[in-house]
């Protein structure tokens, strides 16, 4: 919005502007490649796992308050929404763990930096295999009902 008035000062004399300038004064998103996106995913999953662990330590500590309170909280984990949350948690931990191994190899394996892009795709492939093994079974538990 602020760029509109200023932009018209100089841009008008030529033909009609066919292309609308982007309304992003902050600049475009940097177009990094696999390395940058793996870092973004690693950071997001890392922070998400941290917050889960925080909650998880609290709910486990409840057992010392009273076993009833603990059971009440653990029972809510059996609802479908929490089941989907568990699926997301396994996906996040799987990606974070596999990419963590990739980062260790980049730092400590002499040719790690050379193969970082290939290693990223290997990480994604292993992660997909992991989810194929886990998600159908998890969904049977959530949505299947009787087992």
């Amino acid at each position, binding site marked *: 919005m602020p*760029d509109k008035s200023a932009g018209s000062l100089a841009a008008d004399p030529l033909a009609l502007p066919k292309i609308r300038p982007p309304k992003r004064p902050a600049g475009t998103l940097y177009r990094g490649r696999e390395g940058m996106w793996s870092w973004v995913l690693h950071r997001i999953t890392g922070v998400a796992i941290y917050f889960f662990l925080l909650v998880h330590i609290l709910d486990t500590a409840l057992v010392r308050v009273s076993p009833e309170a603990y059971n009440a909280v653990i029972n809510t984990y059996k609802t479908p929404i929490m089941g989907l949350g568990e699926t997301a948690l396994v996906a996040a931990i799987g990606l974070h763990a596999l990419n963590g191994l990739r980062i260790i190899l980049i*730092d*400590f394996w002499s040719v790690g930096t050379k193969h970082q892009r290939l290693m990223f795709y290997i990480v994604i492939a292993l992660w997909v295999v992991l989810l194929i093994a886990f998600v159908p079974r998890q969904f049977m538990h959530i949505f299947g009902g009787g087992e």
Partner: protein
Amino acid sequence: MESKPSAADAIPTFTATLIIRRFDPEVDAEPRWQDFDVELRATDRILDALHKIKWEQDGSLTFRRSCAHGVCGSDAMRINGRNRLACKTLIKDLDISQPIYVEAIKGLPLEKDLIVDMEPFFDSFKAVNPFLMAGSAPKGGKERKQSPVERARFDDTTKCILCAACTSSCPVFWTDGQYFGPAAIVNAHRFIFDSRDEGAQVRLDILNDKEGVWRCRTTFNCTDACPRGIQVTQAIAEVKQAILRGKP
């Protein structure tokens, strides 16, 4: 002499649109995008397009360039979202059916249009002692001898032209301007692994810091951005390992 312009005319021209992120601190409160239609040839570079705009359309467009041949490192800018030298980016390598976005490099204070304040960048560079540190006199002669193998050890990092394309492509540097940045580490690497140099430990101590090499998150943006093809992330990894080993 006479035949030269007509030979140049034989190369077909086309109209490309450049959208440039402009900022005049005397007029604008915030940067703004402005588009320009420019008549170009496939063999032109982004720098030629910027020259055409400045010379024929809008003389107020501001950018740095000196040698214009990829040696001086003056014209690093973000072209279509990636850090590149304007003088080494050919139009034929870009998709001209889409507008070409040109903006200043990120993470350094924007001064005007495509010019940023490079001082913080050079401060980091100076902080790693980017010069030969040798206290002793060369052995029995006038020169410090080095074998081709010893020279090859740091050959890659001698290529740096200090254009700041790597440092300003680093997500860590964008949010933490205190980080030394890839370029400073590359130039430290150039002397740390130089067999003639005696200051490796000093530089390793400088970079073994909260804002030193340990800030590197291996995003490889620097390696992708380097116009000289330096394996920047590899160099940073080697400095990390040298710190862990305690020697180069």
